[in-house]
């Protein structure tokens, strides 16, 4: 599939992107002396449109661009359910979270909760779960980066993969440590523009190939998939026994509720000056993300119709190469100039996508470490280092941890890791956030219980799930510790998070702090006193 020409051109585009992003990092970090406002929030002066593009750039990962289209090319309609879940999730963010979080917090999720609770335990709990979610998501992206770039560049050997993971990790540490939020934001904006442009170009080419006739696109896809009309209805991937179906509902729940608990998404709202600007940035991003996921559906069915499901599967068993193959075909086939160029562009866009997403997550988790964990844990001894210095160091440490875990987990399925990160975010971060914003009687104990009551079950259920042991595809197929039948814990752990928050509140001895609740509520809805 890959010839020397592809590789040379793709490598050239990769290098160009890396050069541009490093240029941005140097440019924005000139003469800036790291204040926390500058490092975590980029000075809070981005416009809604800029932030909307950056949110879209932060959210649309390579797993979406290549993974969802690939799933649709292989399983038809069942892949489309991901597109829907990833978009609908933004309504939770828009209606319940974005504006209120912008008004109540400064840099992190823990700011919002700690505003009306006893600060130390709440900050440690929320900081821990934010770091846990970020590291899981980061590992997923690193594993994806390793296998994708190796795949696209033809080097399928272990060495190419290892060096890619190390290279991506080093780059993200450089962006974040030197450029902070300002550099990260501009990299995400550039990436969002590149990704949208690439996706629009491919979609238009697919539609031109079918003379704009969607009906003929769908029927050709059904025909060439080998499944006939079943390809256009649900059930090919998740239609098996009831465990598989429940697993799918669990995943659907995690997808729709997880987005509002992702630390790197929440931190983006602090880069604009007001709650109104936060709302308008979410509206921009919903437009961009919705358009993008609609186009991934066209690309997925287009790959099935033009390449055929069998050929996609032959190239990569999980379908990740469907879009690059489609680009090659749309450009005129292997060996043609058009095919070479389009293929290289798709590879470069996928690479840009991964770099922008990992930079955003690294920044959010370094903020949780420095602003929440370090600031709370080191109080007794007094602060010896400035918070920004701690955050820069934390970015480097997190980068090293992610490289290590990314290499260890190289054989895990990327989609599973992303689903797990969403499940943990939905179980540990969302209940505490919603209770803090909307429940008058919520107490410190309730907040701490809500975080751990979602985090611990989510992680434990995965450890005793078929993912880890007890089935041939497990991480440890030889052992059998399996107690829980589902791969995604969301269906159980999300309700447990809410339940624990409620239980902690009704059993706590301290009365809720009326005055601080009033302050949180007034600030959340009006923006009074917001930074």
């Amino acid at each position, binding site marked *: 599939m890959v010839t020397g020409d592809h590789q040379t051109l793709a490598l050239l585009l990769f290098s160009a992107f890396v050069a541009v992003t490093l240029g941005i990092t140097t440019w924005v970090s000139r003469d800036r002396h790291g204040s926390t406002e500058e490092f975590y929030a980029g000075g809070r002066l981005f416009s809604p449109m800029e932030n909307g593009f950056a949110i879209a750039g932060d959210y649309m990962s390579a797993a979406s661009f290549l993974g969802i289209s690939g799933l649709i090319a292989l399983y038809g309609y069942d892949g489309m359910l991901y597109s829907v*879940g990833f978009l609908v999730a933004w*309504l939770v963010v828009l209606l319940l979270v974005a504006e209120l979080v912008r008004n109540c917090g400064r840099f992190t999720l823990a700011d919002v909760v700690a505003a009306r609770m006893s600060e130390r335990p709440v900050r440690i709990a929320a900081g821990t779960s934010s770091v846990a979610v970020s590291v899981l998501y980061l590992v997923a992206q690193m594993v994806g980066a390793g296998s994708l770039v190796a795949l696209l560049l033809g080097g399928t050997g272990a060495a190419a993969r290892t060096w890619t993971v190390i290279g991506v990790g080093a780059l993200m540490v450089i962006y974040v440590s030197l450029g902070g939020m300002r550099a990260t934001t501009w990299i995400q904006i550039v990436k969002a523009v590149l990704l949208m442009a690439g996706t629009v170009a491919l979609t238009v080419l697919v539609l031109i190939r079918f003379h704009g006739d969607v009906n003929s696109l769908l029927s050709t896809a059904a025909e060439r998939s080998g499944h006939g*009309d079943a390809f256009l209805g649900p059930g090919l991937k998740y239609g098996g026994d009831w465990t598989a179906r429940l697993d799918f509902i669990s995943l*659907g729940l995690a997808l729709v509720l997880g987005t509002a608990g992702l630390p790197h998404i929440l931190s983006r709202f602090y880069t604009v000056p007001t709650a109104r600007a936060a709302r308008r940035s979410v509206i921009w991003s919903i*437009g961009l993300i919705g358009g993008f996921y609609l186009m991934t559906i066209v690309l997925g069915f287009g790959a099935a119709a033009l390449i055929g499901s069998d050929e996609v599967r032959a190239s990569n068993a999980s379908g990740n190469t469907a879009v690059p193959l489609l680009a090659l075909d749309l450009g005129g086939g292997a060996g043609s100039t058009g095919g070479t160029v389009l293929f290289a562009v798709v590879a470069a866009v996928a690479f840009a996508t991964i770099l922008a997403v990992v930079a955003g997550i690294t920044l959010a988790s370094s903020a949780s470490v420095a602003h929440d964990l370090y600031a709370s844990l080191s109080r007794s001894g007094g602060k010896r280092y400035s918070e920004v210095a701690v955050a820069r160091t934390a970015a480097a440490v997190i980068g090293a941890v992610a490289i290590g875990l990314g290499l260890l987990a190289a054989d895990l399925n990327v989609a599973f890791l992303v689903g797990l990160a969403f499940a943990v975010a939905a179980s540990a971060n969302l209940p505490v956030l919603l209770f803090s914003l909307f429940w008058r009687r919520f107490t410190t104990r309730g907040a701490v219980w809500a975080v751990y009551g979602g985090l611990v079950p989510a992680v434990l259920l995965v450890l005793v799930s078929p993912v880890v042991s007890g089935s041939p595809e497990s991480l440890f197929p030889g052992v059998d510790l399996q107690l829980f039948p589902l791969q995604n814990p969301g269906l159980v752990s999300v309700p447990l998070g809410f339940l624990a928050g409620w239980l902690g509140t009704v059993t706590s001895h301290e009365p809720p702090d*009326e005055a601080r609740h009033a302050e949180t509520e007034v*600030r959340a809805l009006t923006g009074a006193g917001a930074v």
Partner: protein
Amino acid sequence: MEQLDEQERAGARDDGTDGGAAEFPRQRADAPAPRVPGAAEIYLEVQRSPAFQEVRRRYRRFAFPATLAFLLWYLAYVVAATAAPGLMARPVAGAVNVAMVAGLGQFLTTFLLTWAYARHARLRRDRVALQLRWDTQEMTRGAGQW
């Protein structure tokens, strides 16, 4: 100097809302607002005021039912895809079936609800909320000088 510039710009853009920061230079970086004597009473008073109650009512009257509605519609869609694949596979027109219409319907309702929420917030909430913000900040600034 750069730092000062930065703060001035932020202040100008935010219409000078950083009131009180100068009087509390040693304030902890992550404390949400200057906790001055009297601030707690002011927030309680604002919370009880009819204007604030009206903003909160308008927000909740829109956001809560809308959230419930789209979550139920999404769950119905996911459950139908897993529990009733036969119904979902029924053809509507040409190659397009019920499942495809329902999936595109999710996109459509998401866009529509986004538009409706933005419009509702802009017309029914933003102005009153902004007025309350200035009033509250005036009051807390007064309390700070005490």
